[in-house]
């Protein structure tokens, strides 16, 4: 059995949680307006308690993912049902995420490139990572995530000359309610990660000291993502103002086009787009892994043909189900109304029932 190191867990967690959220999070600040940068913390912080709940189950059920743990805790029938919902949700959501990446490139630097070329390239990379195993995905994340982070930091630095004066003030003029309300619209970003973590458990080191270490890494990963996303929203508000930030589909791409260094260097947005593609690949590949693990846990499917079937289904979803703006709205809809309730109920139920059983046994 492959095992990720705790460092790989940290980087992979941060990469999956961050995904490509930084591309669309600005447009989702909604009624929070110029306080939009505050919506990140409440939306992402809940990944910590739910992540800790899952990691705490790991010690008791070593080598099992959350579907297998569910089987032990609530029985085979219910866990099978949960597993099937998990497979459907993650397949659909992951495919939409892949479609979003195609959409971003089609809208920006490569408007005439046929969609199948993106899908062929992305599909090849995803299959390569899958057949190489989770450890390679971890190493891939160790290479790509720092590049994405450096890309974001460079963008933050280079865009400073474009800041508009005083866009951030007044702070909390309309109170905290709009911030919480807007935050509620992006809570599914954390659910995306929790669902991946649910499948990742068998590949994590499970000694007591390791689990303690993993919990610390979880804190760090979530903190990194909160800081990065907060800064990204902050610079968008400072550059565009709150109204324009909300109006733009992918504000970060517009920011990339605004970078000019001493009137000589411009047009660097294509390089940045490559960084974002790397981040997206990790996210999409992680979902591919998650679905394949779940199919193995629920149905015992192991052979290669199932991965091809999954690839084919994803291709159909990307090509024919939603395109353009539909993808963003569909992602938000599925995320808010399916992913979040499913994740919250599942993790709370398994963790709660397990705790209750423990107490009953000890009592």
């Amino acid at each position: 059995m492959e095992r990720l190191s705790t460092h790989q867990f940290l980087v992979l967690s941060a990469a999956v949680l961050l995904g490509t959220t930084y591309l669309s999070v600005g447009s989702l600040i909604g009624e929070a307006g110029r306080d939009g940068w505050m919506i990140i913390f409440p939306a992402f912080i809940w990944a910590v308690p739910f992540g800790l709940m899952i990691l705490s189950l790991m010690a008791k059920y070593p080598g099992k993912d959350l579907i297998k743990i569910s089987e032990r805790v609530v029985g085979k029938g219910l866990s099978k049902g949960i597993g099937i919902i998990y497979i459907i949700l993650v397949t659909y959501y992951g495919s939409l995420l892949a479609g979003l990446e195609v959409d971003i490139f089609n809208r920006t630097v490569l408007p005439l490139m046929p969609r199948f070329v993106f899908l062929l390239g992305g599909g090849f990379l995803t299959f390569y990572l899958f057949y190489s195993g989770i450890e390679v995905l971890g190493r891939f994340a160790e290479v790509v995530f720092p590049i994405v982070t450096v890309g974001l930091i460079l963008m933050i630095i280079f865009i400073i000359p474009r800041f508009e004066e005083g866009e951030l003030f007044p702070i909390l003029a309309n109170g905290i309610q709009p911030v919480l309300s807007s935050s509620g619209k992006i809570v599914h970003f954390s659910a995306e990660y929790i669902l991946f973590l649910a499948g990742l458990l068998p590949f994590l080191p499970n000694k007591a000291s390791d689990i303690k270490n993993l919990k610390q890494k979880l804190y760090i990963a979530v903190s990194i993502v909160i800081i990065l996303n907060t800064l990204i929203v902050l610079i968008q508000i400072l550059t565009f103002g709150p109204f324009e930030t909300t109006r733009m589909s992918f504000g970060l791409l517009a920011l990339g086009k605004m970078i000019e260094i001493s009137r000589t260097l411009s047009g660097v947005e294509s390089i940045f787009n490559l960084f974002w593609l790397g981040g997206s690949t990790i996210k999409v590949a992680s979902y591919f892994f998650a679905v394949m693990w779940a199919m193995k846990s629920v149905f015992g499917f192991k052979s290669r043909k199932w991965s091809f079937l999954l690839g084919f289904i994803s291709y159909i979803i990307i090509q024919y189900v939603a395109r353009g703006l539909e993808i963003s709205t569909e992602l938000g809809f599925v995320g808010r109304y399916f992913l979040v309730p499913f994740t919250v109920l599942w993790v709370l139920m398994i963790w709660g029932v397990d705790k209750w059983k423990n107490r009953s046994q000890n009592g």
Partner: protein
Amino acid sequence: MEKSFPKWVRNYPLIVFVLVLLLLIEGCGGKKEVEQLGFIMGIGIDSGKDPGKYKVTCQLALPKSGGGNGTETEDWTITSEVSTISGVIENISQVLNKSSFAGTARIIVLGEGLARSDINEALDHFQRYYDFRRTIYLVLARGEAKDILETQLRTKQLPALDILGTIQGQPTFSSFPVTRLGHYLTILGRANQNPVIPVVQKTKHGEKEIEYADEKGEELLVEGAGVFENGKLVDCLCDEETKGFMWLDNTVKNRFINAETEGLILSAWVRKTSTKFKIETNADGKEGITFQIKTKASIDEIKGQQKSMNLEEWKAYTKSLEPVVAQAIEKECRAAVDKSKAIHADFIGIGRKVEQKDPKFWNQVKPDWLNQLADFPVSYDIQVTLEHTGLPLNSPVSPQKSGQE
């Protein structure tokens, strides 16, 4: 490892690698050499003859092939009447044997007629189509944008590039505001603030106090600014009002300012300045805004000072000139504020400043802000520090005349 690669992949990695490389061939398809491209440098938009149509002027720089100098270009300007801005690209493709490239466009010139009807719809294409950048500059033409872009400059330079050069040189002189598309859209997104766009106009020999030998040659002058309300030109600011706006908007970097007092005229070179503001209640119990301007300048020219002074006297004299420069700055600021109140357009963003400092008060006045603006107290606290007066102390007069013989 989850699954190993198929045997044929493991046995023939080179073949697999070459197959993957085939995917990259797509990148070579349809490539264009630089000589095959026409680079759009500036776009002028006027109202068309037919209602709802635009008259779009595109100024392209065409690279000369086979020339001795690789950077040589020729002017290719074309005007077309279209229903949508993007329609002009199609028209260009029908008459130009090169592909037009919009990513190099740096200037949008908006015709006065269009500005009086609506520029927002005309700008939609530029903020939507990915090739254009939000850093593209906006200028308002006095007259038609087409005329501006077809100006026969004495330098033979492309008018779009000439305007670009003038705008990019602005930080040194701060004599007109610089408005990029992104900034315009940001201001548009603020409640009750009006965007401004600098005005460009043609000048000839003898106009605007400028003279030159080639009496037929033309120049482009950027001076003043247009104030917009919901995309429509409301009014234009004169030079003094524009400069006053820039003081209050904290967009002055360096500039020369003339100050006059009791037969004395001096020119101060502003080297560093910053404008802050505070909202406070005045003696009548009314909330008002105070602009606090701190400026460091040097004296570059003095006319009317003939008395010879020693070092100590000169030091005191220099100190006495500071309020004179402050008054000159205040005069420009007052002109801008008076204009804002007169035309009921908050282009200075006083309302936005009130919102920043006192959001509760802003919520009270916001619904009727433009009417409230007319009576809104505005005061100035301007501190000028004259750091030096150039190389000499006294002006160049003879010792006999100054009595210093």
